[in-house]
């Protein structure tokens, strides 16, 4: 592991020490020392990861080694067959979509996909979709609905791509149409925010019956840096904005925007992709099972109600009847 975040450093240093000691350790004394170090490491991990600041969660959500959509596809499903294109303009690699089995159940999987290296990130634009990405997602979700296949969406994007072409091809319209059309799909939709839930670009594939967040994922109306540059006039005040925006999984559960928080392996999902995916797979199973018996009309009505009640305001009721 080369890349670690500042606050992860003490843990990694200790773990390295343990590794070295283990490599050369012989005898009872070394074993005792090893045990002691491991206890220390465990305590340190608990301390650090139990008290993460919102901005540290933001950093974990963006961690370059964090599992991405295709990693979950690999671990949670089988028989994955990717499908491409919006049938109008092109294919957008920032959104992957395709058919897969969850156990015996055929599902449509849609996910925002970041790149592992510079070359891949160039291709996938760091998971920031163009309009054709959102239109591909909708096309395949509608196909799924026609064939009574539940839909799983995996959210991980800094936001919709803010480019010239994106504007020319109707980024806003593409997102808006997805919001409206997802609201009336007649099959269960489960969304998991696996990393960054960046604003409208995230929401455009996240109008669902059940929305879950991984423990260290975030979901926000604007990036902390973007918010800071407007309200603090200083993009470097991201940590302050991250606190103010209430964008952590725990915050969103408290605000009743998401239905559950999925625990990550200690240290974050990037420390153990398989374990993180196992949690996601179990959650998907459970929630798709719970939704599978709901009649279509009720499903759609409930989904509408889920969003209809969102909002915090007082009603002075001064208006004439």
């Amino acid at each position: 592991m080369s890349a670690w975040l500042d606050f992860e450093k003490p843990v990694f240093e200790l773990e390295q020490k343990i590794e070295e000691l283990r490599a050369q350790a012989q005898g009872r004394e070394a074993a005792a020392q090893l045990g002691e170090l491991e206890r220390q490491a465990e305590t340190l991990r608990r301390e650090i990861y139990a008290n993460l600041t919102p901005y540290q969660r933001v950093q974990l959500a963006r961690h370059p080694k964090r599992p991405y959509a295709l990693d979950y596809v690999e671990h949670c499903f089988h028989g994955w067959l990717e499908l491409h294109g919006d049938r109008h303009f092109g294919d957008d690699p920032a959104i992957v979509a395709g058919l897969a089995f969850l156990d015996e159940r055929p599902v449509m999987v849609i996910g925002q996909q970041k790149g592992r290296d510079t070359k891949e990130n160039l291709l996938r634009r760091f998971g920031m979709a163009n309009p054709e990405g959102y239109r591909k997602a909708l096309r395949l979700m509608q196909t799924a609905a026609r064939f009574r296949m539940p839909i799983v969406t995996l959210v991980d994007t800094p936001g919709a791509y803010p480019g010239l072409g994106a504007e020319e091809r109707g980024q806003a319209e593409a997102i808006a149409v997805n919001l409206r059309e997802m609201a009336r799909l007649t099959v269960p939709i489960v969304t998991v925010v696996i990393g960054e839930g960046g604003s409208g670009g995230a929401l455009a594939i996240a109008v669902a019956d059940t929305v879950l967040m991984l423990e260290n994922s975030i979901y926000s109306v604007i990036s902390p840096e973007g918010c800071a540059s407007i309200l603090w006039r200083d993009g470097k005040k991201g940590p302050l904005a991250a606190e103010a925006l209430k964008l952590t999984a725990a915050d969103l559960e408290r605000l009743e925007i998401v239905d559950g928080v999925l625990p990550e392996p200690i240290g974050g999902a990037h420390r153990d992709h398989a374990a993180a995916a196992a949690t996601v797979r179990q959650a998907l199973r459970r929630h798709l099972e719970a939704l599978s018996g709901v009649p279509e009309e009720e499903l759609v009505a409930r989904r509408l109600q889920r969003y209809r009640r969102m909002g915090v305001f007082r009603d002075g009721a001064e208006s004439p009847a």
Partner: protein
Amino acid sequence: MSWLKRERAGIKGTKTPGVEVPEGLWTKCDGCGEALFQKVLEEHLWTCPHCGHHFRVPARTYLGLLVDEGSFSERDAGLQAGDPLGFRDARMRYPDRLKAAQQETGLKDAAVSGVATIGGKPVAITIMDFFFMGGSMGSVVGELVARSIERAIDERRALVLVSATGGARMQEGILSLMQMAKTSALLARLQDQRLPFLSILTDPSTAGVLASYASLGDVILAEPGSLVGFAGARVIRQTIGEDLPPGFQRAEFVLEKGFVDRIVPRQRMRDEVSQLLEFFWRSTRGFARDGDGSPHAFHPHPPAAGGGVQAGPGSR
């Protein structure tokens, strides 16, 4: 993404309409620089008689330009924002920011809602106000729009939404974002009900609002020169590393790209909306539900104003 574009100078320069204005005040046109006499501006519905520049106007002023005189009856005027995040930025708490905006505009939040007639046709209408925190959409604006959609459905009215906004309101965080889903989801129901939705875009109509209800009109009309786009110009410039082409994200550009139906000068807006509603009114025999009669007085050639809807006070 920049959700909120601050244009201090612009706000000051166009603040005047509808508010008490000292007689004989001159306003410099943002378009051509011409000094304009207040009264002349007002006569031209806050557009420049020289270059046609459309000044931003408060919601209540726009209301007066758009609906039949005396037909407006306000609804849900009591809705007020909460502070779900306990938000505080570098300078102030969100509740204080709200209070300041309320004092400045005389509004409770960034939109005015109600029922009215336009060309005699019954509408449920919400008009956004850019002067209230940049016309940002939080829970209250989302709720006003949502209730307008429901009112259109319940009372068989056309829906008219006028946008003037920098996007979602950061101070309500994720709750603002969810207003996009809330309003768009309800528009699916409106579509099923065969009721027309006219979306009117004024300067500016951007970000989270454009990426939800504003882009979903059966017909989308835009005022000339208005800024219509998703991402902020600064963000795009950073992304592509070069300057934006002239006219980028202006209504005329967006028309050319196929995302609005018509550019309509303010002087013609009421007439065009009336004319559009006439088509839908006739085809649905008075916005009637399938297999039902119209709940409104439906005449094949309806009277000029007030057809079948009680007129309310233009409340303030």
